[in-house]
Protein backbone atom coordinates (compact mmCIF):
# COMPACT_ATOMS: atom_id res chain seq x y z
CA UNK A 1 0.00 0.00 0.00
CA UNK A 2 1.18 3.48 -0.73
CA UNK A 3 0.93 6.17 1.88
CA UNK A 4 -1.65 8.56 0.47
CA UNK A 5 -0.25 11.54 2.36
CA UNK A 6 2.41 11.71 -0.38
CA UNK A 7 2.35 11.97 -4.14
CA UNK A 8 3.34 8.76 -5.95
CA UNK A 9 7.07 8.22 -5.29
CA UNK A 10 7.07 11.24 -2.96
CA UNK A 11 8.22 13.95 -5.43
CA UNK A 12 5.68 16.33 -6.95
CA UNK A 13 4.98 15.97 -10.67
CA UNK A 14 6.77 19.17 -11.71
CA UNK A 15 9.96 18.04 -9.99
CA UNK A 16 9.72 14.62 -11.62
CA UNK A 17 9.29 16.24 -15.06
CA UNK A 18 12.41 18.33 -14.49
CA UNK A 19 14.42 15.27 -13.41
CA UNK A 20 13.03 13.23 -16.32
CA UNK A 21 14.10 15.90 -18.81
CA UNK A 22 17.59 15.87 -17.27
CA UNK A 23 17.75 12.05 -17.54
CA UNK A 24 16.86 12.18 -21.25
CA UNK A 25 19.56 14.79 -21.97
CA UNK A 26 21.98 12.70 -19.93
CA UNK A 27 21.24 9.66 -22.10
CA UNK A 28 21.64 11.80 -25.23
CA UNK A 29 25.09 13.06 -24.08
CA UNK A 30 26.65 10.05 -22.32
CA UNK A 31 29.00 10.99 -19.47
CA UNK A 32 28.09 14.69 -19.50
CA UNK A 33 26.80 16.08 -16.18
CA UNK A 34 23.35 17.64 -16.61
CA UNK A 35 22.50 20.26 -13.95
CA UNK A 36 19.18 19.81 -12.17
CA UNK A 37 17.42 21.56 -9.28
CA UNK A 38 17.81 19.05 -6.48
CA UNK A 39 14.96 18.91 -3.97
CA UNK A 40 15.06 18.44 -0.23
CA UNK A 41 14.35 14.82 0.57
CA UNK A 42 13.25 13.45 3.94
CA UNK A 43 16.74 12.03 4.55
CA UNK A 44 20.23 13.53 4.96
CA UNK A 45 22.39 14.25 1.88
CA UNK A 46 24.88 11.52 2.78
CA UNK A 47 22.04 9.04 2.27
CA UNK A 48 22.02 9.30 -1.47
CA UNK A 49 19.38 11.90 -2.14
CA UNK A 50 20.56 12.21 -5.77
CA UNK A 51 19.98 8.51 -6.34
CA UNK A 52 16.67 8.67 -4.48
CA UNK A 53 15.44 11.50 -6.71
CA UNK A 54 16.43 9.64 -9.87
CA UNK A 55 14.69 6.49 -8.61
CA UNK A 56 11.58 8.53 -7.74
CA UNK A 57 11.47 9.92 -11.28
CA UNK A 58 11.74 6.53 -13.02
CA UNK A 59 9.82 4.10 -10.79
CA UNK A 60 6.44 2.70 -11.81
CA UNK A 61 4.17 0.71 -9.46
CA UNK A 62 5.06 -2.46 -11.39
CA UNK A 63 8.79 -2.20 -10.62
CA UNK A 64 10.70 -4.49 -8.33
CA UNK A 65 13.22 -2.41 -6.43
CA UNK A 66 16.54 -3.36 -4.83
CA UNK A 67 18.90 -1.14 -2.84
CA UNK A 68 22.50 -1.97 -2.06
CA UNK A 69 24.92 -0.11 0.11
CA UNK A 70 28.52 -1.15 -0.61
CA UNK A 71 27.12 -4.44 -1.85
CA UNK A 72 24.85 -5.16 1.11
CA UNK A 73 21.05 -5.04 1.17
CA UNK A 74 20.73 -4.93 4.96
CA UNK A 75 22.50 -1.72 6.06
CA UNK A 76 20.41 1.00 7.72
CA UNK A 77 20.78 3.18 4.63
CA UNK A 78 19.66 0.47 2.18
CA UNK A 79 16.74 -0.64 4.35
CA UNK A 80 15.60 2.95 4.82
CA UNK A 81 15.57 3.75 1.08
CA UNK A 82 13.83 0.46 0.29
CA UNK A 83 11.15 1.15 2.90
CA UNK A 84 10.75 4.71 1.59
CA UNK A 85 9.78 3.50 -1.89
CA UNK A 86 7.67 0.61 -0.59
CA UNK A 87 5.58 3.22 1.23
CA UNK A 88 5.57 6.08 -1.28
CA UNK A 89 5.51 4.16 -4.60
CA UNK A 90 3.99 0.84 -3.56
CA UNK A 91 6.77 -1.07 -5.33
CA UNK A 92 7.76 -4.63 -4.56
CA UNK A 93 11.27 -4.90 -3.18
CA UNK A 94 13.81 -7.66 -3.42
CA UNK A 95 17.38 -8.47 -2.44
CA UNK A 96 17.88 -10.77 -5.44
CA UNK A 97 19.75 -8.95 -8.20
CA UNK A 98 18.16 -10.92 -11.04
CA UNK A 99 14.63 -10.20 -9.78
CA UNK A 100 15.05 -6.40 -9.61
CA UNK A 101 13.97 -4.08 -12.42
CA UNK A 102 15.50 -1.01 -10.71
CA UNK A 103 18.58 -1.23 -8.47
CA UNK A 104 19.78 1.78 -6.52
CA UNK A 105 23.37 1.43 -5.40
CA UNK A 106 25.97 3.11 -3.29
CA UNK A 107 29.58 2.22 -4.16
CA UNK A 108 29.19 -1.16 -5.92
CA UNK A 109 28.03 -2.78 -9.13
CA UNK A 110 26.44 -6.21 -8.54
CA UNK A 111 28.62 -9.21 -9.46
CA UNK A 112 25.88 -10.85 -11.55
CA UNK A 113 25.76 -9.21 -14.99
CA UNK A 114 22.70 -6.96 -15.37
CA UNK A 115 20.32 -7.45 -18.27
CA UNK A 116 18.40 -5.32 -20.73
CA UNK A 117 15.27 -5.04 -18.58
CA UNK A 118 17.16 -3.51 -15.66
CA UNK A 119 18.16 0.00 -14.59
CA UNK A 120 21.07 0.73 -12.24
CA UNK A 121 20.84 4.01 -10.29
CA UNK A 122 24.06 5.20 -8.64
CA UNK A 123 24.24 7.49 -5.62
CA UNK A 124 27.01 9.99 -6.37
CA UNK A 125 28.70 12.20 -3.75
CA UNK A 126 31.03 14.17 -6.07
CA UNK A 127 30.12 13.97 -9.77
CA UNK A 128 32.96 16.11 -11.11
CA UNK A 129 36.08 14.01 -11.85
CA UNK A 130 38.16 17.18 -12.31
CA UNK A 131 37.07 18.78 -9.01
CA UNK A 132 40.26 17.92 -7.09
CA UNK A 133 42.31 19.54 -9.87
CA UNK A 134 40.13 22.61 -10.26
CA UNK A 135 37.62 23.78 -7.62
CA UNK A 136 35.81 26.26 -9.89
CA UNK A 137 32.76 24.90 -11.66
CA UNK A 138 33.10 27.44 -14.49
CA UNK A 139 36.62 26.13 -15.17
CA UNK A 140 35.80 22.42 -15.04
CA UNK A 141 32.92 23.04 -17.47
CA UNK A 142 35.37 24.70 -19.82
CA UNK A 143 37.83 21.82 -19.45
CA UNK A 144 35.11 19.33 -20.40
CA UNK A 145 33.95 21.42 -23.33
CA UNK A 146 37.52 21.69 -24.68
CA UNK A 147 38.39 18.07 -23.78
CA UNK A 148 41.24 19.40 -21.66
CA UNK A 149 41.95 16.20 -19.80
CA UNK A 150 45.75 16.42 -19.73
CA UNK A 151 45.89 17.39 -16.04
CA UNK A 152 43.91 14.28 -15.16
CA UNK A 153 46.51 12.11 -16.86
CA UNK A 154 49.28 14.03 -15.11
CA UNK A 155 47.66 13.30 -11.73
CA UNK A 156 47.40 9.59 -12.52
CA UNK A 157 51.00 9.57 -13.74
CA UNK A 158 52.15 11.20 -10.48
CA UNK A 159 50.63 8.19 -8.74
CA UNK A 160 52.81 5.95 -10.86
CA UNK A 161 56.01 7.83 -10.14
CA UNK A 162 55.23 7.92 -6.42
CA UNK A 163 53.83 4.40 -5.89
CA UNK A 164 55.01 2.48 -8.95
CA UNK A 165 51.36 2.00 -9.94
CA UNK A 166 48.14 4.02 -10.14
CA UNK A 167 47.06 4.23 -6.49
CA UNK A 168 43.53 5.50 -7.16
CA UNK A 169 41.39 2.59 -5.97
CA UNK A 170 37.88 4.11 -5.93
CA UNK A 171 36.06 6.55 -8.21
CA UNK A 172 38.66 5.71 -10.84
CA UNK A 173 37.98 8.04 -13.79
CA UNK A 174 36.66 6.72 -17.10
CA UNK A 175 36.25 8.11 -20.60
CA UNK A 176 32.84 7.65 -22.20
CA UNK A 177 32.57 7.01 -25.96
CA UNK A 178 35.94 8.69 -26.44
CA UNK A 179 34.55 12.06 -25.31
CA UNK A 180 33.62 12.91 -21.68
CA UNK A 181 35.74 11.98 -18.67
CA UNK A 182 33.32 10.76 -16.00
CA UNK A 183 33.43 9.88 -12.31
CA UNK A 184 31.83 6.44 -11.93
CA UNK A 185 31.04 7.26 -8.25
CA UNK A 186 33.17 5.67 -5.52
CA UNK A 187 32.90 2.11 -6.81
CA UNK A 188 36.11 0.08 -6.44
CA UNK A 189 38.09 0.11 -9.67
CA UNK A 190 37.45 -3.66 -9.73
CA UNK A 191 33.94 -2.70 -10.89
CA UNK A 192 35.07 -0.36 -13.68
CA UNK A 193 35.07 -2.97 -16.47
CA UNK A 194 31.39 -3.68 -15.71
CA UNK A 195 30.51 -0.12 -16.77
CA UNK A 196 31.59 -0.86 -20.33
CA UNK A 197 28.96 -2.25 -22.64
CA UNK A 198 26.51 -2.99 -19.82
CA UNK A 199 23.10 -4.14 -21.11
CA UNK A 200 21.24 -2.20 -18.40
CA UNK A 201 20.67 1.56 -18.39
CA UNK A 202 22.99 3.30 -15.90
CA UNK A 203 21.83 6.55 -14.26
CA UNK A 204 23.90 8.65 -11.84
CA UNK A 205 22.38 11.13 -9.37
CA UNK A 206 24.30 13.63 -7.23
CA UNK A 207 21.89 15.40 -4.84
CA UNK A 208 24.06 17.93 -3.04
CA UNK A 209 25.95 18.79 -6.26
CA UNK A 210 22.76 18.78 -8.35
CA UNK A 211 23.97 16.73 -11.29
CA UNK A 212 22.53 13.82 -13.26
CA UNK A 213 24.46 11.81 -15.82
CA UNK A 214 23.87 8.59 -17.68
CA UNK A 215 25.22 5.71 -19.72
CA UNK A 216 22.89 4.14 -22.28
CA UNK A 217 23.21 0.36 -22.74
CA UNK A 218 26.24 -0.87 -24.70
CA UNK A 219 28.09 2.41 -24.17
CA UNK A 220 31.85 2.25 -24.61
CA UNK A 221 33.51 3.10 -21.28
CA UNK A 222 37.30 3.01 -20.84
CA UNK A 223 39.26 3.47 -17.60
CA UNK A 224 42.00 6.07 -18.08
CA UNK A 225 45.46 4.52 -18.25
CA UNK A 226 48.86 4.56 -19.95
CA UNK A 227 50.49 2.29 -22.47
CA UNK A 228 53.27 1.37 -20.03
CA UNK A 229 50.84 1.15 -17.07
CA UNK A 230 47.60 -0.38 -18.32
CA UNK A 231 44.50 -0.28 -16.12
CA UNK A 232 44.11 -3.24 -13.76
CA UNK A 233 40.82 -4.14 -12.07
CA UNK A 234 42.55 -5.35 -8.91
CA UNK A 235 41.01 -6.96 -5.83
CA UNK A 236 42.21 -8.75 -2.71
CA UNK A 237 44.12 -11.85 -3.79
CA UNK A 238 41.97 -14.40 -1.93
CA UNK A 239 38.88 -16.50 -2.55
CA UNK A 240 35.75 -15.59 -0.55
CA UNK A 241 35.89 -17.26 2.91
CA UNK A 242 32.18 -18.04 2.85
CA UNK A 243 31.38 -19.10 -0.73
CA UNK A 244 34.84 -19.68 -2.22
CA UNK A 245 34.26 -17.30 -5.14
CA UNK A 246 37.52 -16.25 -6.81
CA UNK A 247 35.98 -13.68 -9.15
CA UNK A 248 34.14 -11.36 -6.73
CA UNK A 249 35.10 -8.15 -4.93
CA UNK A 250 35.94 -8.91 -1.29
CA UNK A 251 35.65 -7.05 2.00
CA UNK A 252 38.06 -7.85 4.79
CA UNK A 253 36.16 -8.47 8.03
CA UNK A 254 37.43 -8.98 11.57
CA UNK A 255 36.04 -12.25 12.95
CA UNK A 256 36.99 -12.27 16.62
CA UNK A 257 38.73 -10.41 19.45
CA UNK A 258 41.96 -12.21 18.67
CA UNK A 259 42.15 -10.26 15.40
CA UNK A 260 41.20 -13.14 13.14
CA UNK A 261 40.24 -11.94 9.68
CA UNK A 262 38.55 -13.27 6.65
CA UNK A 263 37.67 -12.06 3.18
CA UNK A 264 34.04 -12.25 2.06
CA UNK A 265 32.12 -11.11 -0.99
CA UNK A 266 31.00 -7.51 -0.66
CA UNK A 267 27.94 -8.42 -2.79
CA UNK A 268 25.93 -10.28 -0.14
CA UNK A 269 23.23 -11.47 -2.57
CA UNK A 270 25.90 -13.02 -4.81
CA UNK A 271 27.59 -14.71 -1.85
CA UNK A 272 24.37 -16.06 -0.34
CA UNK A 273 23.18 -17.42 -3.68
CA UNK A 274 26.49 -19.24 -4.13
CA UNK A 275 26.31 -20.69 -0.62
CA UNK A 276 22.71 -21.78 -1.24
CA UNK A 277 23.96 -23.55 -4.36
CA UNK A 278 26.41 -25.50 -2.21
CA UNK A 279 29.63 -23.53 -2.67
CA UNK A 280 31.74 -23.30 0.47
CA UNK A 281 34.80 -21.24 1.37
CA UNK A 282 37.43 -22.16 3.92
CA UNK A 283 35.85 -20.05 6.71
CA UNK A 284 32.28 -21.31 6.20
CA UNK A 285 30.80 -23.12 9.18
Amino acid at each position, binding site marked *: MTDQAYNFAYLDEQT*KRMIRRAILKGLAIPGYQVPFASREMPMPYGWGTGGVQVSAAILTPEDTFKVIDQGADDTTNAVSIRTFFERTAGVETTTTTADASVIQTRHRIPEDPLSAGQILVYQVPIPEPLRFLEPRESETR*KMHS*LEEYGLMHVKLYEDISRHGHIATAYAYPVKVEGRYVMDPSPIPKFDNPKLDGMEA*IQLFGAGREQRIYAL*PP*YTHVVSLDFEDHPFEASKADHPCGMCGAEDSYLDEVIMDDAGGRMFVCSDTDYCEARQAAGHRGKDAA
Partner: protein
Amino acid sequence: MQAETLCGGFADPAIQSAHAFRSVMEAMARPGTIHDISGAEPPAPLSKAAGAVLLTLCDSETPIYLAGEADCDAVRAWLAFHTGAPLTGPSHCMFALGRWEALMPLHAYPIGTPDYPDRSATLVVDGAGLVASGTTLTGPGIKDTASLSLPDVGALQANTALFPLGLDFIFTSGSQLAALPRTIEVC
Protein backbone atom coordinates in the same frame (compact mmCIF):
# COMPACT_ATOMS: atom_id res chain seq x y z
CA MET B 1 -13.61 26.79 -23.99
CA GLN B 2 -14.10 23.68 -26.14
CA ALA B 3 -14.92 20.42 -24.38
CA GLU B 4 -12.03 18.69 -26.11
CA THR B 5 -9.65 21.13 -24.45
CA LEU B 6 -10.58 19.83 -21.01
CA CYS B 7 -10.47 16.17 -22.00
CA GLY B 8 -7.69 13.89 -23.05
CA GLY B 9 -5.20 14.55 -20.27
CA PHE B 10 -3.86 11.84 -17.98
CA ALA B 11 -6.71 10.61 -15.74
CA ASP B 12 -4.15 9.48 -13.16
CA PRO B 13 -1.21 11.81 -13.87
CA ALA B 14 1.40 10.45 -11.46
CA ILE B 15 1.02 6.83 -12.57
CA GLN B 16 0.36 7.41 -16.28
CA SER B 17 3.24 9.86 -16.64
CA ALA B 18 5.51 7.36 -14.85
CA HIS B 19 4.60 4.69 -17.40
CA ALA B 20 4.86 7.12 -20.31
CA PHE B 21 8.27 8.32 -19.16
CA ARG B 22 9.62 4.78 -19.01
CA SER B 23 8.61 4.35 -22.65
CA VAL B 24 10.34 7.61 -23.59
CA MET B 25 13.44 6.74 -21.56
CA GLU B 26 13.71 3.23 -23.03
CA ALA B 27 13.32 4.73 -26.51
CA MET B 28 16.03 7.35 -25.89
CA ALA B 29 18.35 4.81 -24.22
CA ARG B 30 17.90 2.25 -27.01
CA PRO B 31 17.71 4.25 -30.24
CA GLY B 32 15.69 2.59 -32.96
CA THR B 33 13.51 0.52 -30.63
CA ILE B 34 9.77 1.18 -30.94
CA HIS B 35 7.67 1.45 -27.78
CA ASP B 36 3.99 1.77 -26.93
CA ILE B 37 2.90 4.87 -25.06
CA SER B 38 -0.63 5.68 -23.97
CA GLY B 39 -2.86 7.70 -21.69
CA ALA B 40 -3.38 10.89 -23.72
CA GLU B 41 -6.22 11.76 -26.13
CA PRO B 42 -5.01 15.01 -27.73
CA PRO B 43 -6.94 16.87 -30.43
CA ALA B 44 -6.13 16.36 -34.13
CA PRO B 45 -3.66 16.45 -35.75
CA LEU B 46 -1.59 15.21 -32.78
CA SER B 47 -1.03 11.49 -32.33
CA LYS B 48 -1.81 9.94 -28.95
CA ALA B 49 1.88 9.24 -28.57
CA ALA B 50 2.88 12.88 -29.15
CA GLY B 51 0.22 13.96 -26.66
CA ALA B 52 1.55 11.57 -24.01
CA VAL B 53 5.17 12.72 -24.57
CA LEU B 54 4.20 16.37 -24.11
CA LEU B 55 2.09 15.68 -21.01
CA THR B 56 5.01 13.75 -19.52
CA LEU B 57 7.80 16.23 -20.19
CA CYS B 58 6.32 19.70 -20.63
CA ASP B 59 5.12 22.36 -18.20
CA SER B 60 5.43 26.09 -17.55
CA GLU B 61 9.25 25.77 -17.63
CA THR B 62 9.44 24.36 -21.17
CA PRO B 63 8.74 26.69 -24.11
CA ILE B 64 7.22 24.76 -27.04
CA TYR B 65 7.29 25.56 -30.74
CA LEU B 66 4.31 24.28 -32.72
CA ALA B 67 5.12 23.80 -36.40
CA GLY B 68 2.73 23.67 -39.35
CA GLU B 69 -0.61 21.96 -38.79
CA ALA B 70 0.22 21.34 -35.12
CA ASP B 71 0.00 25.10 -34.63
CA CYS B 72 -3.79 25.23 -34.46
CA ASP B 73 -6.29 26.54 -31.91
CA ALA B 74 -7.26 23.08 -30.66
CA VAL B 75 -3.67 22.03 -29.95
CA ARG B 76 -2.74 25.40 -28.45
CA ALA B 77 -5.70 25.33 -26.09
CA TRP B 78 -5.12 21.68 -25.13
CA LEU B 79 -1.44 22.23 -24.36
CA ALA B 80 -2.16 25.41 -22.42
CA PHE B 81 -4.76 23.66 -20.27
CA HIS B 82 -2.88 20.42 -19.61
CA THR B 83 0.76 21.58 -19.48
CA GLY B 84 0.83 25.37 -19.08
CA ALA B 85 3.80 25.41 -21.44
CA PRO B 86 4.42 28.80 -23.12
CA LEU B 87 4.53 28.86 -26.93
CA THR B 88 7.55 30.31 -28.67
CA GLY B 89 9.44 30.35 -31.95
CA PRO B 90 11.95 27.68 -32.95
CA SER B 91 15.04 29.58 -31.80
CA HIS B 92 13.98 29.67 -28.13
CA CYS B 93 12.11 26.40 -27.72
CA MET B 94 12.99 23.43 -25.53
CA PHE B 95 10.51 21.23 -27.39
CA ALA B 96 9.22 21.46 -30.93
CA LEU B 97 6.24 19.57 -32.28
CA GLY B 98 5.08 18.91 -35.80
CA ARG B 99 5.53 16.85 -38.93
CA TRP B 100 9.11 16.52 -40.17
CA GLU B 101 8.66 18.85 -43.16
CA ALA B 102 6.98 21.50 -41.01
CA LEU B 103 9.81 21.38 -38.45
CA MET B 104 12.53 22.12 -41.03
CA PRO B 105 15.12 23.57 -41.16
CA LEU B 106 17.04 22.02 -38.26
CA HIS B 107 19.43 24.97 -37.93
CA ALA B 108 16.53 27.03 -36.56
CA TYR B 109 16.71 25.29 -33.15
CA PRO B 110 19.02 25.67 -30.13
CA ILE B 111 21.75 23.00 -30.20
CA GLY B 112 23.18 23.78 -26.74
CA THR B 113 26.45 25.51 -25.90
CA PRO B 114 29.92 23.99 -25.44
CA ASP B 115 29.60 24.41 -21.64
CA TYR B 116 25.94 23.31 -21.57
CA PRO B 117 25.22 20.94 -24.48
CA ASP B 118 22.05 19.86 -22.67
CA ARG B 119 20.47 23.25 -23.40
CA SER B 120 19.30 22.02 -26.77
CA ALA B 121 15.87 21.41 -28.24
CA THR B 122 14.09 18.09 -28.38
CA LEU B 123 12.01 17.71 -31.54
CA VAL B 124 8.85 15.63 -31.34
CA VAL B 125 8.38 14.53 -34.94
CA ASP B 126 4.79 13.42 -35.30
CA GLY B 127 2.83 11.57 -37.90
CA ALA B 128 5.15 9.45 -40.03
CA GLY B 129 4.70 5.72 -39.41
CA LEU B 130 7.44 3.93 -37.46
CA VAL B 131 9.04 0.84 -38.94
CA ALA B 132 12.12 -0.95 -37.65
CA SER B 133 13.77 -1.00 -41.05
CA GLY B 134 15.34 1.44 -43.47
CA THR B 135 18.13 3.58 -42.10
CA THR B 136 20.93 1.81 -40.20
CA LEU B 137 21.76 3.22 -36.76
CA THR B 138 24.92 2.74 -34.69
CA GLY B 139 26.09 4.28 -31.44
CA PRO B 140 25.51 4.27 -27.66
CA GLY B 141 22.39 2.31 -26.71
CA ILE B 142 22.70 -0.02 -29.72
CA LYS B 143 24.48 -3.36 -29.39
CA ASP B 144 25.55 -3.75 -33.01
CA THR B 145 23.19 -1.96 -35.35
CA ALA B 146 19.52 -0.99 -35.33
CA SER B 147 17.16 0.00 -38.14
CA LEU B 148 14.52 2.69 -38.23
CA SER B 149 12.46 4.43 -40.89
CA LEU B 150 13.84 7.99 -40.82
CA PRO B 151 12.80 11.00 -42.87
CA ASP B 152 16.03 12.69 -44.01
CA VAL B 153 19.34 10.94 -43.47
CA GLY B 154 21.41 13.90 -44.64
CA ALA B 155 19.94 16.34 -42.14
CA LEU B 156 20.32 13.81 -39.32
CA GLN B 157 23.95 13.11 -40.26
CA ALA B 158 24.64 16.85 -40.10
CA ASN B 159 23.09 16.90 -36.61
CA THR B 160 25.24 13.99 -35.43
CA ALA B 161 28.32 15.83 -36.67
CA LEU B 162 27.59 18.58 -34.13
CA PHE B 163 28.12 16.23 -31.15
CA PRO B 164 28.32 16.90 -28.22
CA LEU B 165 26.00 19.72 -29.34
CA GLY B 166 22.92 18.92 -31.38
CA LEU B 167 19.23 18.13 -31.34
CA ASP B 168 17.51 15.04 -29.98
CA PHE B 169 14.48 13.54 -31.71
CA ILE B 170 11.41 11.68 -30.52
CA PHE B 171 9.39 10.16 -33.38
CA THR B 172 5.72 9.57 -32.61
CA SER B 173 3.01 7.85 -34.59
CA GLY B 174 -0.34 6.55 -33.39
CA SER B 175 0.37 5.06 -29.96
CA GLN B 176 4.06 4.40 -30.57
CA LEU B 177 7.35 6.21 -30.29
CA ALA B 178 11.04 5.82 -31.06
CA ALA B 179 13.92 8.19 -30.39
CA LEU B 180 17.17 9.33 -31.95
CA PRO B 181 19.68 11.17 -29.74
CA ARG B 182 22.49 13.21 -31.28
CA THR B 183 25.04 10.46 -30.60
CA ILE B 184 23.69 8.12 -33.25
CA GLU B 185 25.38 7.64 -36.60
CA VAL B 186 22.83 7.11 -39.38
CA CYS B 187 23.47 5.76 -42.87
